[in-house]
């Protein structure tokens, strides 16, 4: 449904704390706006959940609400433990899912 970009270092040292950044393109329709022509409320369609796993374990999880802007951006820090993929899963209203993963090499 949407386009995502994830940025993380390709290789890190074991025990190092590194930053992961992600941006996804999404309208984040709040459900409060009205169509200017018809006057009807535009139904809510936002990303309501972001879950990030690192090597299969969840390291970052959040529930989102209508106050989150369009094209939401997230950044957080993780401690490097083992080589593995960091996988982002965004879930939108209605159940649509966008996934993006990057591989981390722990030296």
């Amino acid at each position, binding site marked *: 449904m949407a*386009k995502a*970009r994830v*940025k993380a270092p390709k290789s890190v040292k074991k025990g190092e704390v590194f*930053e992961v*950044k*992600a*941006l996804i*393109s999404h*309208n*984040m329709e*709040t459900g*409060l*706006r009205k169509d200017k022509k018809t006057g009807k409320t535009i139904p809510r369609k936002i990303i309501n959940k972001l879950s990030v796993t690192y090597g299969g374990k969840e390291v970052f999880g*959040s529930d989102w609400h*209508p*106050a*989150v*802007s*369009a*094209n*939401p*951006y*997230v*950044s*957080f*820090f993780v401690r490097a433990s083992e080589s593995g993929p960091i996988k982002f899963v965004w879930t939108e209203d209605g159940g649509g899912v966008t996934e993006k993963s990057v591989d981390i090499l722990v030296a």
Partner: protein
Amino acid sequence: MKKQFQGILMGAAVAVGLSSFAGIAISAEKMVYKSGDRNSGYTYATKETQAIQDDDLGNPAYIYVDDGAALWSKVDGKAGKSCATCHGVESAMLSDLATRYPVYNAKLGKMQNIEQKINQEREEKMGAKPYKWESGQMLALTIYMRNQSRGKPMNVSIDGPAVPFFEAGKKYFDQRRGQLDMSCKNCHEYYAGNRIRANMLTEAQSNGFPTYRLKWQKPGSLHRRFRGCNSTVRAQPLAYGSDEYVNLELYVAWRGRGLSVEAPSVRN
């Protein structure tokens, strides 16, 4: 109303690094935000807004840079060509394109800006349908193209055939209009740096356009900005791509000479 915040959920990421994406990465120190007495809109933005622009991943308009890069190489129209067919995937022409436009087009006998040039090429060379002005595709392609000139100083030609159009643009800038009887100059030259209600007035520099405006929650073209200004002084906005706006674009680009191309910039 849509909320006006860029959702920075966790921490403020300000790191500027080389990006593996399509965009041109220029370190912040190399950008020229002040040239003579001219200051980019960047210098009027809050630190938080500047941080979003400085971080190529945090800048939401970079999604459009990626899209634009794909459109550049996408074959469209009857001729079976893409932009890249003639110009190459890595076109040297793009490296200073944003600094030069709008330029005088002898065939049309008037100034032509990037959007108009794209549509002309699409129709004449590619046999494709022109893009609508403020469509996602047009924004993506113009953002991608202008982004390739990022960091280069604005340097439009106002000599020779461009002179009458430059004069017309200047006249439009200085001319009072609308129910509020205000010219561009009234705000953007006399009161730059002051607030007009909650908004910061800047010097009306065009070097960052198309800009990602947090209020719009998407990028917008320079002509959208012109139309917005026209209607806030309660004047009738002109059409996208009208001669008056293209002339104004030339004059505004000249006013910002020397400033780095910032496209896509982020403003509040």
